[in-house]
């Protein structure tokens, strides 16, 4: 479904991604793990068009999207749950969700997706009139996920959804990710929490200073000595 082919991305003079390639098969959960500053967020931002690769291609369903305007990407079926949630803090929960469906015109579809989000996250329904900035961290993460779902994406890019959350909430969020995937959305998950990410992913890539250094099925990586040492605290 998604194929990143040898992209080079620069921040000014800094070479942030060095010929990075990865592939996400339809229906799967693929995770990209690595340390802080390795280039995980940069990879996602390149896919969603916020950053422009100098070389290489990003193929989505057979078309190169690396030169598509960033605000057009979501319309193609890719939505992103950004790092640090990035909810619209002074807008209400409901308005945040409406923004997720900004490009959609099918009123009925939006209504039913809104109901689905509220069924999945009852706390958001209770707080639909509250401004997003007053929610707890976990609730904001749920809102960011709900907002991304409102675009009815085929591929969802998730950037560190576990960041800053209590362990119990992290578990809940990962259950939700699994469930979203089970209902047909392909997921590319970026995580520092390698343990959790590998536990739900089909395939995984390990990124270090802008390059993929390891890849394989989750089982392969969980059992790999290098990954154990560097990322699993073993």
């Amino acid at each position: 479904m998604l194929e990143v082919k040898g992209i080079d991305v620069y921040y000014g003079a800094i070479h942030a991604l060095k010929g990075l390639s990865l592939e996400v098969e339809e229906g799967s959960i693929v995770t990209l793990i690595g340390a802080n500053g390795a280039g995980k967020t940069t990879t996602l931002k390149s896919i969603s068009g916020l950053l422009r690769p100098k070389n290489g291609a990003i193929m989505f369903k057979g078309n190169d999207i690396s030169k598509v305007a960033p605000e057009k990407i979501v319309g193609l079926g890719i939505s992103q749950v950004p790092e640090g949630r990035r909810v619209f803090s002074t807008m209400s929960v409901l308005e945040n969700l409406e923004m997720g469906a900004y490009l959609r015109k099918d009123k009925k579809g939006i209504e039913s997706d809104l109901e689905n989000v509220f069924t999945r996250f009852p706390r958001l329904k209770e707080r639909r009139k509250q401004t997003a900035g007053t929610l707890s961290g976990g609730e904001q993460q749920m809102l960011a996920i709900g907002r991304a779902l409102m675009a009815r994406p085929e591929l969802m890019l998730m950037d560190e959804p576990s960041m800053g959350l209590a362990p119990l909430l992290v578990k809940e969020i990962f259950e939700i990710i699994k469930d979203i995937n089970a209902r047909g959305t392909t997921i590319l998950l970026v995580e520092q929490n390698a343990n959790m990410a590998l536990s739900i992913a089909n395939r995984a890539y390990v990124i270090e200073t802008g390059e993929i250094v390891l890849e394989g099925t989750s089982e392969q990586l969980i059992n790999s000595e290098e990954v154990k040492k560097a990322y699993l605290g073993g």
Partner: protein
Amino acid sequence: MLEFLQQLINGLSLGAIYALIALGYTMVYGIIMLINFAHGDIMMVGAYVGFFSIAVLGSNIFAALIFAMLSCAALGVLIEKIAYKPLRNSSRIAALITAIGVSLFLEYFTLFLLTPQQRVFPEAAFPLHKYQIGGLLVSNKDIFIFVLAVILMIALQYIIKRTRTGKAMRAVSLDREAAILMGISVDRTISITFAIGSSLAAAAGVMIGIYYNTINPLMGIIPGLKAFVAAVLGGIGIIPGAMVGGFLMGILETMVSGYGSTLYRDAVAFGVLILILLVKPTGLFGKDTGEKV
């Protein structure tokens, strides 16, 4: 007491005008962090468009208002595209200096085109009536300006709170990158902001024409600066703040003129600016969060 109420009434119409101008400052700042110093001059252009459509085309005051608002909406969008958009990723001081340049351009191009001569707003377009209400003197101009300004402000609030476009404007001003991820076009949103802000300024320009009777190419400077003070007083970037700030400035100005001296009214206006910057730089409605990282 009667004297005080009278000054209050006089202040309300002037304040309504300041509030309309202040809204444009605050909306543009909210979305691209730029103090658009050309905003007062857009107001001046609006006054001239209104003047010519009454004096030359013979249109009535409402047609003149709509014509002025549409022309200035287009002018505002054009200014943004030509002058500010290329600087969007430059330092803020570069854009600020450019705004001052645009301001001077509008002033002196109008001077060149139309001569510095004052023009008298045609009395026939808005015949003055005065009413005595329980000892208070109210003119139809005051009522017209106040009511129209309030209608425009309610319309603005409706657009921003309820419409898809308005929500997109808020989203862009809160978090531009997240807004892009939703599929919102930042360019389009910024254009709409300039269009709305400039059309409100145009309405204010026509109102000033009615209020003071005369217009000239440099008429935008002082009201523009006072409206800027009003926007800062309310909290720059905060829409209700601009409204309240505008009314406060108008009322303060008429009070100073009424009880003190007209000579001091401008000094007091800028004294207010200094005072806010000293005491509460974020303005009346601003939260002391500082710049978000």
